[in-house]
């Protein structure tokens, strides 16, 4: 056990420089920096994102209340947007239960921003500007989720059956021990094992228009096939950011939350109270907007060619 920092001072200087560059980038574009609570009485209902609970007890009271460390500042920032904030950004800590590895820390630094009147392609343009500034690696490549699958493994992710996906994974050398009966899990496996390693190494890659089963909080466009207006950013095969053309319909959002809770129940996960403040804000009216969250620690890893995320945070978990 060592008391010493896991990051070098050179790294901490680069970290400070990147944070200053990001703040300058948004300040020049008149995007307001905000802070929202990291501790809240609700959290995400997503079955594959777990929140770390914290017990709050008012001094002198016997009543214990379960609060959650936020996995992203999304709901609170959308409440600001609904209240009329205009474009906003935030640099904050985010927390994820159980996630620790080469690219994961249970506590990490997130940059999240929202742009009224932007669709997800407009926001990809702005992401590209920011990445060109901090990475200096030229323009990003854009690739639809379907094209990435068709080009690399020759299957269409919107239509392939469970059997076709499992066969495709096997054919591409993915040996899976567990029984997987979920299309999205196979898509994730093929994406992480077979497609991400083939992404270009010399510039970022933006993957857009996800399957509707992975819409999360994105709008769904009723095209043929219908797709979710969601995008992800990769550089050197590492997932850096996730963005949406944001869902505005509060009824549809409630259905998605309830569906999440149903899935959580099937997976034996604890229920999470639905964020009624967030739904009320959507009912009041969220402006047409796009938003994205970027993992700043991973960005720093890529800038510094670090091999483990612990090397870019002062004291790694």
């Amino acid at each position, binding site marked *: 056990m060592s008391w010493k920092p896991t990051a070098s001072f050179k790294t901490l200087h680069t970290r400070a420089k990147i944070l200053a560059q990001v703040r300058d980038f948004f300040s020049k574009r008149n995007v307001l920096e905000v802070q929202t609570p990291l501790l809240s009485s609700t959290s995400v209902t*997503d079955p*594959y*994102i777990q929140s770390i609970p914290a017990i709050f007890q008012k001094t002198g009271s016997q009543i214990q209340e379960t609060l959650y460390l936020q996995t992203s500042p999304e709901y609170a920032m959308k409440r600001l947007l609904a209240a009329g904030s205009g474009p906003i950004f935030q640099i904050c800590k985010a927390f994820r239960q*159980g*996630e*620790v*590895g*080469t*690219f*994961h820390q249970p506590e990490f630094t997130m940059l999240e921003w929202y742009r009224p009147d932007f669709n997800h392609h407009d926001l990809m343009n702005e992401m590209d500007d920011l990445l060109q500034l901090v990475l200096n690696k030229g323009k990003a490549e854009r690739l639809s989720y379907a094209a990435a699958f068709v080009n690399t493994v020759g299957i269409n992710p919107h239509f392939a059956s469970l059997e076709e996906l499992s066969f495709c994974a096997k054919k591409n050398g*993915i*040996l*899976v*021990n*567990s029984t*997987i009966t*979920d299309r*999205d*899990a196979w898509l*994730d*496996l093929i*994406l*992480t*094992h077979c497609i991400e390693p083939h992404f270009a190494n010399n510039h970022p890659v933006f993957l857009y228009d996800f399957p509707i089963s*992975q819409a*999360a909080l994105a709008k769904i466009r009723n095209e043929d096939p219908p797709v979710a207006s969601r995008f*992800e950013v990769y550089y050197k095969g590492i*997932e850096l950011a*996730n963005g949406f053309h944001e869902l505005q319909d509060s009824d549809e959002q409630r259905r998605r939350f309830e569906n999440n809770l149903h899935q959580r129940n099937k997976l034996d996960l604890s229920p999470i109270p639905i964020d009624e403040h967030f739904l009320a804000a959507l009912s009041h009216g969220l402006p047409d907007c796009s938003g994205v969250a970027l993992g700043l620690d991973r960005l720093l890893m890529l800038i510094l060619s670090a091999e483990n995320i612990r090397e870019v945070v002062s004291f790694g978990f």
Partner: protein
Amino acid sequence: MASYSTSEIRGGMKVMIDNDPCAIVDNEFVKPGKGQAFNRIKYRNLKSGRVVERTYKSGDSIEAADVTDIEAQYLYNDGSHWHFMCGDTFEQYQMDEAQVSDSKLWLKEQDKCVLTLWNGSPLGVAPQNFVILKITETDPGVRGDTSGGGGKPAKLETGAVVRVPLFVQQGELIKVDTRDGSYVARVKE
């Protein structure tokens, strides 16, 4: 037998996969931001020596293998089997050529080595990192050349062939690093 969860598995652990004892090489946590968590586990099959990668859902468990390493002494080779004895228990073990594999090139009678046992039966043997062996065959080099540049092949008493400096002569003892088969130094008798 106990089992390990994917969150506990680290390099070096011995587990049972497809009824074969395996040593974990690496365990990588893979999780897309909005997707399911997996562990990509790389392991060496201790019977075949092959390194394989397999993906598990995070939270799955793998059965532990009863694999232990013991200190032993290499006794002799009877033509088909290599015989060893544990220094603590005086128990004897034998292995065939496939099991001793490349280690046989470094095993000299009476030398210490490490046996890997699975359920009490030997799986493999590792020589010491450094062994001292006699050169049985090498071309006469140029006397007085002590620069160490160049070099020539030399056959050792165990059958191994290593590259030695030109000044090293037949009949001399040398120290060899068994991990890469490199010459380290000449040794006085």
